[in-house]
């Protein structure tokens, strides 16, 4: 899609200003229902677009992302723009600097339409935990878009953005991509700089693209990836053009499928995934049965490591340095003046009224697990099991290039369906979470066959995971699947 729009911009069929205005018109038309956006940046977007048009008019060459409008998840800092992480505690926060991914996208000439809705601090799988209200799934407004990057996925699905950025700590890019019928990519841990992303769990977080097509994901990833001096965990690997690996072929790739992974699925999801496997066989891939015995512990490992890191990362929200201070907030109605409160009272009140229920719960869980006497039993044990999970992947990747799973156990669920039982909501991430625990790259691609629920055709994605830093084969396989259904497939192959 980006390439087609790029060609239209060059040929003069459309201007960047027209394109940007077209997307704002879509937003005006649809976003009252969808609620993908928390903040729109129309003025700066149109200014950017005008610059691109001037460049084209003067005969200068433009890059692939130049003039292409996209959306940014609201936990990624854009200088001068309100950045809330969908939390009341950051309601008034205006980022004083650009995240590295934003700086790189700005350099590429990409246009930012606005900031998208999410579960508060990226904690959730449905966008129902946003302090500003839920996003609706464009495929069926009675259903959630998934989460936590639900706003970004819904924006792309509803043509309210060409591309979007999300963040993924346990599946927050891939699961909403699956629910909304778009592509979502979580890079290898360290492939993309986390500088300027509001941290949730630092050993698991990655920023990645949500797009309509695999090629678009490759284009955006090419811009945002690469080493960054501001993130010491960013990998020392040069940026590269991932579109070079989209050959249109999956022949010879070895794809592993865990037999246990398909066991508990509903019949329709299972059929949909089985057809994906058949397609890969037809494309000449070799499908092998694999076993990852420690993967079943990935979810409980996650629910120790993540809250521990959350409790540490979110300690910075104290009502002193930035964000909301309890007595400044209109909703708290506290009957006292700020000068009467002590330091500790300021902390307690600001965090009490600033954070939502789920955020508090995870901070509490992490604080408990890290408190004196419990470290060995929880955090240390979890990091050891994490090693075993990683070793599973190392062993399996000696025999296969990729691992194929469903992205989520089911298509999009209805609002309120999973909010009563927290463990039920946590199970949403069962297929996606291992990639974060092991640090490997993973992508969700819409399966051709949708799933019929209550008379609605709902999208569902499948997931491919690859070896550390092998986004190339992952994108190649995802792309080969995607284009195999296009009637003009040959023409689309580069």
């Amino acid at each position, binding site marked *: 899609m980006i390439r087609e729009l790029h060609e239209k911009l060059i040929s003069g069929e459309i201007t960047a200003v027209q394109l940007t205005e077209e997307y704002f018109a879509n937003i005006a038309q649809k976003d009252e229902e969808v609620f993908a956006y928390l903040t729109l940046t129309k003025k700066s977007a149109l200014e950017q677009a005008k610059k691109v048009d001037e460049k084209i008019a003067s005969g200068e060459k433009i890059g692939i992302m130049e003039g292409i409008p996209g959306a940014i998840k609201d936990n990624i800092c854009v200088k001068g723009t309100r950045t809330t992480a969908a939390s009341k505690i950051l309601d008034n926060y205006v980022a004083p600097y650009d995240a590295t991914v934003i700086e790189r996208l700005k350099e590429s000439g990409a246009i930012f339409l606005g900031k998208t809705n999410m579960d508060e601090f990226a904690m959730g799988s449905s966008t129902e935990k946003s302090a500003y209200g839920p996003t609706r799934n464009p495929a069926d407004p009675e259903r959630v878009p998934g989460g936590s990057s639900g706003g970004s996925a819904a924006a792309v699905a509803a043509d309210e953005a060409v591309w979007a950025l999300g963040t993924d700590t346990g599946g927050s890019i891939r699961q909403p991509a699956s629910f909304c019928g778009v592509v979502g990519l979580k890079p290898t841990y360290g492939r993309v700089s986390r500088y300027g992303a509001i941290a949730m769990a630092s050993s698991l977080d990655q920023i990645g693209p949500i797009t309509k097509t695999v090629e678009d994901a490759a284009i955006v990833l090419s811009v945002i990836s690469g080493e960054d001096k501001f993130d010491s965990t960013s990998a020392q690997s040069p940026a590269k053009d991932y579109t070079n690996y989209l050959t249109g072929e999956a022949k010879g790739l070895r794809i592993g499928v865990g037999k246990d992974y398909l066991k508990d699925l509903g019949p329709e999801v299972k059929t949909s995934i089985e057809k994906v496997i058949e397609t890969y066989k037809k494309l000449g891939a070799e499908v092998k049965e694999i076993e990852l015995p420690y993967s079943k512990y990935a979810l409980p490992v996650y629910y120790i490591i993540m809250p521990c890191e959350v409790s540490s990362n979110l300690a910075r929200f104290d009502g002193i340095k930035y964000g*909301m201070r309890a007595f400044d907030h209109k909703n708290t109605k506290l009957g006292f003046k700020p000068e009467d409160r*002590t330091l500790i009272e300021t*902390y307690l009140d600001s965090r009490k009224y600033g954070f939502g229920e789920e955020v508090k719960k995870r901070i509490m869980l992490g604080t408990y697990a890290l408190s004196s006497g419990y470290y060995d039993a929880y955090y240390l044990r979890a*990091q050891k099991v994490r090693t075993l999970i990683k070793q599973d992947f190392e062993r399996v990747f000696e025999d296969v290039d990729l691992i194929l799973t469903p992205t989520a156990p089911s298509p999009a669920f209805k609002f309120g369906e999973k909010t009563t039982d927290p463990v039920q909501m946590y199970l949403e991430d069962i297929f996606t979470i291992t990639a974060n625990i092991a640090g490997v790259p993973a992508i969700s691609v819409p399966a051709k066959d949708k799933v019929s629920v209550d008379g609605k055709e709902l999208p569902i994605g499948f997931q491919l995971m690859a070896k550390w830093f092998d986004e190339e084969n992952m994108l190649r396989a995802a792309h080969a699947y995607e284009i195999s259904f296009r009637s003009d497939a040959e023409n689309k192959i580069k």
Partner: protein
Amino acid sequence: MISKEEVRHIAGLARIGMDDQEIEKLAVELSAVLDWIDQLKEVDVEGVEPTAHITGMENRLREDKAGNFEDKKMIVKLFPENKDGYGKVKSIL
């Protein structure tokens, strides 16, 4: 099962103000999650090294040198209280 007293203690450590109702609810919810997490006890981790960095990256050193931040004013503006170009904090003594 964790007690209400423990939850109160943890809330204090986490610096989150909580009323009795919240404490009661969290005691139940945290216990449920902790019970579920307990399945990790069945894994034999004898002799297994804990993961420190998932792709095996080691310490990366850089020069300890202060850089310039362009928009200091934007940072000062973010302080809930500021005075004369500085952020104002509560007295700690």
